[in-house]
């Protein structure tokens, strides 16, 4: 069975081919990284997987189902969560609430029953307790305790990134897409993130599709790497192969390490 595969995926904006017949497959449990210079089409790839953009060609298969063209909420329901290169939090809510929204999929209580929540032993009450327990676990894991009831809008960048990660984890995904989780962080923070990503893979058993700029980090944690340039895949393989690939070296030589700002 195919866990996750992208086949001949293409995406054009006007005349611009942001993705040009990209194919790869991820096996369950691995950390798969996508690298490439600014504007290579990495974020666009995520947006296509998520259903934010409808791809112009190709297929996306998740657990043997073609999920290409599904709406974002459907993709989320299928078990794929993500974080954004530019943070997309609910800035007028606190940390707890943000992560809690990640549990939305697990709140079965609909309009009516939600209104009939009479105390802890009711169905809705039990559900609520279970959800809170999960959220607390995530808060502990990511060491976010001190920010629990702070509005996220005013928190430091690194913390916001963590909250976003927490929110994605709250959805209990099988596949987690991380778009430059270390962007804008200092070396120490980056180190932390590397640990968490490994934890997530090991302890929670979540498969990770990662976009990252920082070559060292990518080499360090990825099982396999795909290199994109101008929307085209130019290399794919284990870190050692990819790092010596001539085209990759060429593509990366002219690249200054600036953060790119294009998001969804």
């Amino acid at each position, binding site marked *: 069975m195919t866990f996750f595969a992208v086949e001949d995926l293409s995406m054009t904006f006007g005349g611009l081919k942001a993705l040009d017949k990209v194919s790869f497959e991820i096996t369950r449990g691995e950390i798969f990284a996508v690298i490439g210079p600014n504007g290579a089409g990495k974020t666009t790839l995520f947006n296509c997987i998520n259903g934010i953009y409808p791809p112009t060609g190709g297929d996306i298969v998740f657990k043997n189902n073609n999920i290409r063209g599904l709406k974002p909420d459907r993709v989320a329901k299928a078990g794929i969560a993500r974080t954004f290169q530019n943070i*997309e939090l609910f*800035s007028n*809510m606190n940390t707890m609430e943000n992560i809690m*929204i990640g549990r939305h999929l697990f*709140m079965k*209580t609909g309009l009516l029953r*939600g209104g009939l929540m009479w105390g802890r032993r009711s169905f809705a009450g039990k559900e609520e307790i279970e959800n809170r327990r999960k959220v607390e676990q995530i808060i502990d894991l990511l060491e976010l305790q001190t920010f629990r009831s702070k509005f996220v809008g005013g928190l430091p960048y690194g913390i916001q990134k963590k909250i976003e990660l927490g929110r994605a984890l709250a959805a209990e995904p099988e596949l987690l897409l991380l778009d430059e989780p270390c962007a804008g962080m200092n070396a120490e923070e980056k180190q932390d993130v590397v640990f968490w990503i490994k934890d997530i893979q090991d302890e929670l058993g979540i498969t990770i599709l990662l976009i990252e700029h920082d070559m060292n980090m990518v080499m360090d944690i990825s099982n396999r790497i795909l290199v994109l340039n101008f929307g085209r895949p130019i290399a794919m393989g284990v870190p050692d192969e990819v790092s010596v690939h001539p085209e990759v070296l060429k593509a990366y030589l002219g690249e200054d390490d600036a953060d790119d700002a294009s998001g*969804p």
Partner: protein
Amino acid sequence: MIDFIQMVISGIAVGSSYALMALGMVLIYKASEVPNFVQGEMALLPVFIAYMMIYSYGYSVFIAFFGALFFAMILGCFLEFAVVRRAKNPNILGLIIVTIGLEMILLGLVSWKFGADQRIMPFPISSYSSVMIGDLYISTMDLVTLFVALAIMIVLFLFFRFSKFGVAMKATQQNPTAARLMGIRTNRVKMVTWGISATVGTVSGLLLAPVIMEPYMMWNPMLKGFAGAVVGGMTSLPGAVFGAYIVGVVEHLFGGYVSMDFKAVVAFAVIVIVLCVKPSGLFARHYVKKV
């Protein structure tokens, strides 16, 4: 002094129907970011449907009112689903024009189907009885309206604070992209929000109808509700309610002490003053919305 108290009481009485309209408008503003000028007519049509259920089909007032509320829910959802959502590259001006167009269509429909004759909606409580407290009076109908309005506000606040849907709505409003990625069906959230808004407005319409029903009955409450919503900052439910009561009370004090001639338009002066002093409205909470 007694006059002053009486004016404040009457202002609050009239403010209740403004408040319900204001709540409806804010709900929709939060969901679709448009001042909804079809708010009044989303209530008007269900009110006339209730009338028709009573007189043409012989249903009891109770059933007819529930029918109207149910119909309002469907109507609100339908307008969002069939019209508002279809707007291509919606900008605020375009959406305003869409709501004004809908307003004219629904008003035309009611005028055409029911004619211009004034009518009275049957209601268990007399529209003209009152409660006297010393020299102060408040009409029973006003009192009922006040309590119903308060009850609806409380239910709405609880609903949006604690229910799954309420959280989804808040998320949708703050960051639709992220909301969708959390599995929230933002389109459906918007649609249901329109339905809820129409239902809330219809409650106000049903409480006005026992005094007099005619196709233009919702126009004034809608405009004053809008004024209240703007005063409250357009995005805050408590703000809308507070703003609506302010408008009601100011109208009455102004009519009583300054000039009856301009009583009907003083609400718009209130808007201007509030916007000058606090451009985002009295209750607006600012949050940075990322795109």
